[in-house]
């Protein structure tokens, strides 16, 4: 997804995001308000705000440069919403991201989420490897990861 493909009727907002943890809650609240004026379905707005929050947490934790941004795109006709978070990362994080993405994209979303929870419970580092599985299960949306060189794009579309 890129803003350039956005049709005239679609609305979008793009935010550059300095890597500050405290901004995440603020952006989450902003997205919720933004969606409240763009769509009617409250639970869809909640799911999008949750997904944006998890994706921004990742961007703050794993970005290697100060160039993170988030795009929120709304198609009023279909009420489809896409969130795209872009950041630069080092190869190690990218490799982990691709491995986890592959693992959590296959099979039943609930089963995958529960498996990730059980594995997370055994970890004692700061990681949970639970965020992406949570997004997939809770939103039921289409989660995508694209990597070009060191640029990571993670997106979720909810119809």
């Amino acid at each position, binding site marked *: 997804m890129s803003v350039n493909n956005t049709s005239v009727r679609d609305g979008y907002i793009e935010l550059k995001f300095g890597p500050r*943890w405290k901004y*995440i*809650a603020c952006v*989450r609240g902003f997205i919720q308000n933004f969606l409240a004026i763009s769509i009617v379905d*409250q*639970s869809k707005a*909640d*799911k999008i705000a*949750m997904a944006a*929050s*998890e994706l921004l*947490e990742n961007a703050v*934790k794993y970005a290697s440069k100060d160039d993170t941004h988030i795009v929120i795109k709304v198609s009023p006709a279909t009420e489809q919403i896409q969130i795209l978070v872009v950041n630069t990362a080092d190869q190690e994080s990218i490799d982990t991201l691709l491995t986890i993405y592959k693992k959590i994209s296959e099979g039943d979303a*609930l089963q995958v*989420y*529960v498996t990730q*929870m*059980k594995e*997370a*419970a*055994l*970890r004692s580092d*700061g990681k*949970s490897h*639970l*965020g992406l599985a*949570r997004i997939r*299960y*809770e939103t039921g949306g289409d989660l995508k990861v694209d990597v070009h060189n060191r640029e990571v794009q993670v997106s979720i579309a909810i119809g």
Partner: protein
Amino acid sequence: MNRLNIEKIHEDRMEVEVFDENSNICVRFKGDIDMEDPGVFLDPFFNQLHEGMIAQKIKEVKADFKELNFLNSSGIKAVAKWIMKLTELSDAEKYTIRILYNRDITWQVTSLPTLNFLVPGVVKVE
């Protein structure tokens, strides 16, 4: 103070408090749990709760999430860690976790019932 002697946690916009409820215990979560590593507060809290439940042979704890607006995936990990501790207990030590959730909060409706699948038979979601 509750009979497990567990102090209330108040960090950022999150509050966690333990109450006595007849012969059982109630834990109430409030606000937003969205810090980078909530395990720093939640892991020791759940350990103390778990040890207390066993030591005092309390058979049920109510986990009330109704006023928790947001819980990030690192927070979900901390809750899952607590529930998974029940697999280490003998039948005599086992206690039940009754999870109360808010049907108006979207993430609670989708994520909290899944805790049921972690350890069969010890979690009741209502």
